[in-house]
């Protein structure tokens, strides 16, 4: 296959982004841009699937790869792009955002994610991750008149640039130690020269992991996330919580298994620490939140911790449990954000959920489904995901982390069930002001379907989660 054909999904997204920018002035209504973006996302997903059916391949001199792992995440990213686009329709109209540019940025950020998940070279990886974060800065600050959004964007920009510097420094140290930036070459250099556990490499690996941990907001590199989520408009927060975390986890997974297989011990230790801190801090801080988006931000921090449990083992089975976790997490978190968005102004604060069940029974039930899934209660997908990563933690020889993770899932159950209690067991205080828009309903239906089907027939998806 030609090199360009390998990048068909990315090219489709870039093409749509450029087209939107070119005709920006002619787009008068939000739905037009949204339809374009959703169809580009679907086309990209189809292209990914089609490429996968043609077998695996590498391109651009071993810079990118086409394999089950990359295509799995590309389809996931395309799916989250489509859902976020659907969720954005009303917000764009309300906030009067520039339609074409907003969608173009979403498309380009997704392109960056796709590039980074198929990267087999540290430089491609860096390019992809940076493309994603650069677009995210602008997306967070897209409501220019809102000072809070500006503050969030600046904070995010400063911290994430620092993280990028760490990442680059790690890359350069790796290059210095091994003489290469390609994953396979790094692995063979490590094996040949017996560099495993040399101090230089330990520093390089730690910097790489730290840089990427910023992007997925794992504790202690999480401080930007709650502010950025709260300041950004809800669809963008959902996009950050879902797509960018999935991409970050994917990158970490490939780097761990392919490039630094010989550093498994150091990696395992780093991931164990990040996971434990993320789970503990994320769950506990979520307890105190009264803003729904901040609550979801802390919950996403805790979830990253759970997902990292899978990477800790450093084995292909472990990575595939993380893949499953990332997949289901994207849909359930998008679902929860979808409800927040669907309820409009009211959905942003916890108080707004008071008595929702009597006013909007279907919406409340859907929210309950997503909350149960986030808690990890069967028969939802969250349970399957959690089961996998806990199994992987035990396999890696960390029973104490498995117990810690489960104990804190009870803490997080309290967080989520607080919302359920408000919805089902309290009297409503506010009037329902807005109806769920059609686009949001569609996105919610998809998310709910995946959450349920994933919980009842996990095998249908788990089969596709093949690690690199």
């Amino acid at each position, binding site marked *: 296959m030609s090199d360009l054909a390998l990048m068909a999904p990315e090219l489709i997204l870039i093409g749509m982004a450029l087209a939107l920018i070119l005709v920006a002035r002619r787009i008068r209504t939000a739905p037009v841009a949204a339809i374009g973006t959703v169809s580009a996302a679907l086309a990209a997903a189809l292209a990914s699937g089609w490429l996968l059916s043609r077998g695996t391949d590498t391109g651009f001199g071993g810079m990118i790869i086409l394999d089950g792992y990359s295509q799995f995440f590309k389809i996931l990213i395309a799916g989250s792009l489509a859902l976020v686009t659907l969720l954005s329709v009303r917000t764009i109209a309300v906030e009067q955002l520039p339609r074409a540019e907003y969608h173009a940025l979403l498309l380009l950020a997704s392109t960056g994610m796709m590039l980074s998940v198929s990267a087999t070279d540290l430089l491609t990886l860096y390019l992809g991750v940076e493309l994603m974060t650069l677009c995210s800065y602008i997306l967070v600050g897209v409501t220019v008149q809102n000072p809070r959004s500006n503050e969030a964007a600046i904070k995010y920009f400063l911290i994430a640039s620092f993280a990028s510097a760490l990442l680059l420094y790690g890359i350069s140290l790796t290059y210095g130690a091994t003489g290469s930036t390609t994953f396979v070459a790094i692995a063979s250099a490590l094996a040949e020269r017996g560099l495993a556990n040399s101090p230089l490499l330990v520093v390089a690996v730690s910097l790489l992991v730290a840089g990427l941990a910023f992007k997925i907001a794992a504790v202690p590199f999480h401080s930007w996330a709650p502010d950025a989520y709260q300041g950004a408009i809800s669809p963008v927060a959902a996009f950050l919580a879902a797509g960018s975390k999935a991409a970050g986890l994917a990158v970490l997974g490939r780097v761990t298994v392919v490039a630094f297989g010989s550093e498994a011990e150091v990696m395992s230790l780093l991931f164990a620490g990040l996971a434990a801190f993320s789970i503990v801090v994320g769950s506990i801080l979520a307890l105190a939140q009264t803003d729904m988006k901040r609550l979801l931000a802390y919950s996403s921090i805790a979830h990253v911790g759970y997902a990292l449990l899978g990477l800790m083992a450093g084995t292909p089975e472990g990575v595939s449990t993380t893949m499953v976790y990332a997949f289901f997490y994207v849909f359930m978190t998008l679902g929860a954000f979808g409800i927040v968005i669907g309820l409009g102004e009211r959905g942003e604060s916890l108080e707004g959920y008071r008595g929702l069940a009597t006013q909007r029974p279907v919406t409340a039930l859907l929210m309950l489904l997503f909350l149960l899934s986030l808690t990890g209660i069967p*028969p939802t997908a969250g349970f399957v995901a959690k089961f996998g990563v806990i199994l992987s933690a035990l396999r890696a020889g960390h029973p104490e982390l498995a117990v810690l993770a489960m104990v804190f899932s009870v803490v997080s159950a309290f967080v989520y069930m607080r919302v359920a209690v408000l919805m*089902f067991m309290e009297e409503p205080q506010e009037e329902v002001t807005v109806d769920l828009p059609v686009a949001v309903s569609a996105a919610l239906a998809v998310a709910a379907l995946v959450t349920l089907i994933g919980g009842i027939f996990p095998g249908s998806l788990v089969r596709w989660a093949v690690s690199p």
Partner: protein
Amino acid sequence: MLGLFSASTLFLFVIFWELMVIPLFLIIGVWGSSNRVYAAVKFLLFTLAGSVLMLVGTIALQHTCGTLDFKALSLARHCLQPNSQAWIFAAFLAAFAVKVPMFPVHTWLPDAHTEAPTAGSVILAGILLKMGAYGFLRISLPILPDAVRLFIKPMLIISAVAIVYGAYVTLAQKDVKRLIAYSSVSHMGFVTLGIFTLTRNGLEGAILQMINHGIITAALFLCVGMIYERTHTREIKDYGGVGKTAPVYSTLLALFCLAAAGFPGLNSFVGEFLVIGAAFGTRGWLGAMAIWGVGLGTTYLLWLYYRVVMGTANPTLAGLDLELNSREVATLTPLALLALCLGLYPELVLSYLHAPVAELLAGVVP
């Protein structure tokens, strides 16, 4: 619930186990009485804390043995070291102990039972509490025999404490529903006591006692619920002299109270008799504690009956039609008949238990 008791693999068992929690959480929280949210959240957190540890235990079993099928696991149990067995047992114990509930993790039960609507209390008492004991029989005994032998002493002590402590706390209750709820703690103590004597009589008695408790406590909650609908009070002191205005109700209540107290000829007597006999066989003082518990049980139940049904009629109840209607009689009669039948002819149930219990014991007792 049916799924739980018919599950043939641990994975399904865990799924159905957790599946039970949320509907009950909503039943208590949405249709409960005044303090419902507190009770619902407490119930949820207690049970979740137990069940997540069970999940860890399940995953550990999957990890070491490679299977979650009950049959395969009990055959392949040599794959577990005694040490890891003990840990896995502890993980499962957390879940089962909360559900049974064993002392000292029983505190969710009075709140949940008291605040839940009648139907919720009946489900809780009749079925949910049995899940824990069923778990002991289904998982702990056949799959983790070494750990059972290791834990047997503390388990017996906890059970005996639950019986006596539960009975004393019951004596002090002023709220009818709370009283019955605490009596469950004491009664379920008999069940766990019987299971961990690891003798044929003890196990058969425990299983029979599970069934008995399901019938009687459910019936008692129904009785309370029916009269609560008329009087809207659960305080014992607001009642009195009900026997004069509601003879049918009083008769049925008497039957169930006597059954719960372990009156000969009614079902609990057989189960308690078997368990106490087994307890005496294991350790003399265990039997003594159990007898003590029965004595206290008779006291609080008859005292409850005395305060509610006998004495002078409470003026606040004047003018209320307390007698049961035919629908309610039709609900309670089958339960009363069952209590009588099992009391007079326990072989009805016991005959089904002989073979499986023998098989179960063959695996545990070396």
